[in-house]
């Protein structure tokens, strides 16, 4: 009977295939085969397409220049982000990071890759580096969301990933719980380059990947360390960013 049942189920599956739907809402059908999110979930993201700062990629509203960039002296070449950090995108990222739905990293990473293709040329880059997590945190969470995102970007841009060279020393307080000023302090001097892998980034053009860009403190610290270790140039690509002045 088991065999018959199997055949019957297989047949049903062919006639009425159970195709996976949207990875977030799990209900609606997909619009494209490439990105596994439905039309609704995709359109709730507030994409940045113009009015962004040429340097840090944040949305600029009613201003001539980007204030953050004036205050900071960013070490990276330029940063770009997919969207502003609105409710929808924060839900997706939250679910991905804290609700154990790391499968969401795939569609989000794919969108990140689409942006990567638009703003960076493959020929101008050598290696992709995700912003690392501290060892303890990696253990408790089980994965580094920046690495998962970077993996999709690396597929799209056809570049190698290096997650060995850049390391985070101590387990800091989560950035999101701090005020802007404290954030800079919080991350200063906590990143370092693993000496045995340093030669792999010597003279290289690096694309740094992270999920959220708020003040730019994290990626700026990473850039500093990478440049000090001999990287030629660092660019940044993140999923979410704030609006200028937020």
């Amino acid at each position, binding site marked *: 009977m088991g065999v018959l049942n199997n055949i019957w189920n297989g047949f049903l599956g*062919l006639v009425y295939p159970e195709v996976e739907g949207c990875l977030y809402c799990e209900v609606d059908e997909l619009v494209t085969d490439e990105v596994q999110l439905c039309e609704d979930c*995709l359109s709730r993201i507030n994409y940045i397409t113009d009015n962004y700062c040429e340097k840090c990629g944040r949305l600029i509203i009613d201003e001539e220049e980007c204030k953050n960039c004036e205050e900071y002296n960013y070490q990276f070449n330029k940063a770009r982000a997919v969207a502003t950090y609105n409710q929808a995108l924060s839900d997706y990222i939250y679910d991905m990071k804290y609700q154990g739905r790391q499968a969401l990293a795939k569609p989000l990473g794919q969108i990140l890759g*689409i942006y990567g293709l638009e703003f960076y040329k493959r020929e101008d880059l050598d290696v992709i580096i995700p912003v690392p997590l501290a060892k303890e945190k990696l253990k408790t969470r089980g994965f580094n969301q920046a690495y998962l995102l970077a993996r999709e970007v690396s597929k799209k841009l056809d570049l190698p990933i290096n997650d060995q060279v850049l390391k985070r020393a101590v387990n800091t307080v989560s950035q999101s719980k701090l005020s802007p000023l404290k954030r800079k302090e919080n991350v200063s001097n906590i990143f370092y380059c693993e000496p045995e892998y340093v030669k792999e980034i010597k003279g290289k053009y690096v694309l740094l990947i992270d999920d959220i860009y708020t003040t730019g403190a994290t990626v700026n610290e990473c850039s500093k360390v990478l440049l000090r270790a001999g990287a030629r140039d660092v660019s940044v690509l993140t999923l979410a960013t704030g609006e200028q002045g937020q």
Partner: protein
Amino acid sequence: MKKFSEMKTPFLVILLFLGLGIILGTKINLYWEVILISLILTLISTIILWYYESQLTKVIVLILILLLGIMQVEALEVEYKSSSSITNFVRQEVTIQGQVLSSSQSGAKEYEYILEPNFVKLDNNINKIKYGKILLKLRSNRQEYKYGDRLKIKCQITLPPTNRNPGGFSYRSYLKNKQVYALITEAGIREIKLKGEGGNQLVKMILRLRENASRIINQTIDRPYDFLLRGFLLGDKEQIPLKIQENFKNLGLNHLLVISGFHIGLLILILNSFAQGLRLPKWIANIGGLLLISIYIIITKGQASVVRAGLVVLLYILGSTFNRKINICNLLSLVAIMMLMINPYYLFQPGFQLSFLITYGIIYLMPVLKRRLSFIPNIIATSLAVSLAAQLVAFPILVYYFNQVSLIPILGNILVMPLVSLIIFCGFIAVLLGHLHLVFAQLLNNISMLLIIILLGVIDSLKNLSFLTFKLVKPHYLLIALYYFLLYQFKEIITYNIIPYYSRCKERITISIMVILLVLLLLHGHSILNEELKLIFLDVGQGDAAYLSLPTGEDILIDGGFNEDEMANFLYRNGIGDIELMIISHFHQDHVKGLLKVLQEFDVRVVLFPEPKVKNRLVRNVFKVLKSKQIDYYMINDFRKLNVGEINFNIYHYSGAIIESNNNSLLVKIDYGDFQVLFTGDAGREVEKNLVKRGIKLNSEILKVGHHGSNSSSSQLFLAQVKPKLAVISVGKNNQYNLPDLQVKDRLYKIGSDILMTKNKHAIVIKSNGRYYWLEKK
């Protein structure tokens, strides 16, 4: 690669491979045993690969399906020729015992029956027939037969006629595709006897329902509107007045007269609202739906379109009972596969192709188009998007099969569809209630009649837009493929992208342009490598018509026959749009009349003809078209030489006084290396003598025999000079002049020439590479 179980539409892939197999099956001729062995080998390897869970399993399964497609076609071919096929008994006096499978009235004076033969008696031997049905055509003054009747017929069976000219309609293949292999016409019948009654009782009961429905419609609606309503509800297209049918066809609204998923959908809708009104549980409604569909399929005599739509809805209902997600594309493909398993030749029926392609097209294109049309009210945007999607997808098929497309349906559908749905809706309910009492039917059918009158009014006013209908020649396969590729790219380009920078518009446009260039290169590269001269003597009945295609690609016509459409249709069906040179041998109807339409509807560069001696209406018409379309023409009174590439045209005209109008014919000699053809029009002996006297080199491999083989031409003196290897006589079957003349045939045989006649061979196709020539199959 995705597994079957992970795909959204696994059956679409299977359908593609099955279809490919069927196409291959008709193109190649493999031995039946070869296919069977490779099929078994593939099957074994499939099982082995499957057992080891190899990645290759899917590939080998698809190959298996491809082979199945090939085998299906080959199996039918074997059946067609087998000893128990009805085709073995054609052109002989036989007695047939068979059963009527279906009957229909075709036109006012003829009935058509599909007969399933059981036994054929030939010379006292009784043979059992397993393969092939027979089409029986009877005059309406005979007794009428119905489904299930067992008949005994003494008659002569014939094979249906084939196409007369390349690309023309072949009744034989048309019927063969419906598994009808033979024909019995009134002329072949000695005696018909009704021997008894058989058939399925259930089918008979349902067919009685059909008769009832017909009767109710007849009694409650006036002529000719009852025919239309019967067409809409029962698919009885035949009796709708021809003029109305023509209107639907010319406006590209023919699909309204075909029963489709639309009807089935309406039926189910009516049923479900009844069920809801009576608060019946869902499963009863579902079972009712399945029953209703099955009955409707039989009532409409199993038309392919109804079967298709019915099966899809059936699968839909089953899916929702099992609580499964439903993908219409996948279900549609499964239904197509099922139908192709029953009869692989469905694949080549335009109706089959159109119905499936249009449904796929609407599913695929409609959402995108609708979004782009979102500036207009939703209902209109939806119907416009559906209509546009359907038209975009159907376009190449319509041009390929009917050489005509119309832009009218894009808007026309929106005007007409609501009317038609209301008519069908009222009609269905009227017929249902009519079974209770005719008054209900009368009431509703008054509304239907009014709606039909309005519908016909709308159709009549749409006729004013006939400038939106275009005639096009049959496109090359590559162009059709290109069209669908570009349609795909177009859809991707106009798709509204939620994710910015996602559509790679520029890349798509670049790819499209590259593919266009590639296709153009392939189409033209073919003509660069070509060194064949193609010559076709068309079968235009009693008359002359020839077509030449030069190795350099020019298309040339020499005369066009008597029938007004035949030459033009030949050009349409073979994708010939431009005529570089047209030669009119002389102004007799059986040579010129068919060229008028060509002059009107095609691009003709240059026309050559002798100076007409009489100015009759035909001559005036020709000149009128030449002037209005500003076509270059030259009248030839003596001798003219033309060179096109390696090919020489020598055109002669009689230099003496012309008394007999046939002698005003141009003679055309074509030289291509060692190969020559001579066309002499209708020129008589006097002209022939004159040519010989002038010392012109007449020696030709092929001679188009003068004046359809009449004794007034082809003198011994002339033939001795021409010495043709092959003489072609362009002559009609049973012509009133009894041509060709036996003496002419004698003279030709005496100089050792072969003779081919268009009345027996239909079109004669000859090819030459400038060194030798060969006859080609059509």
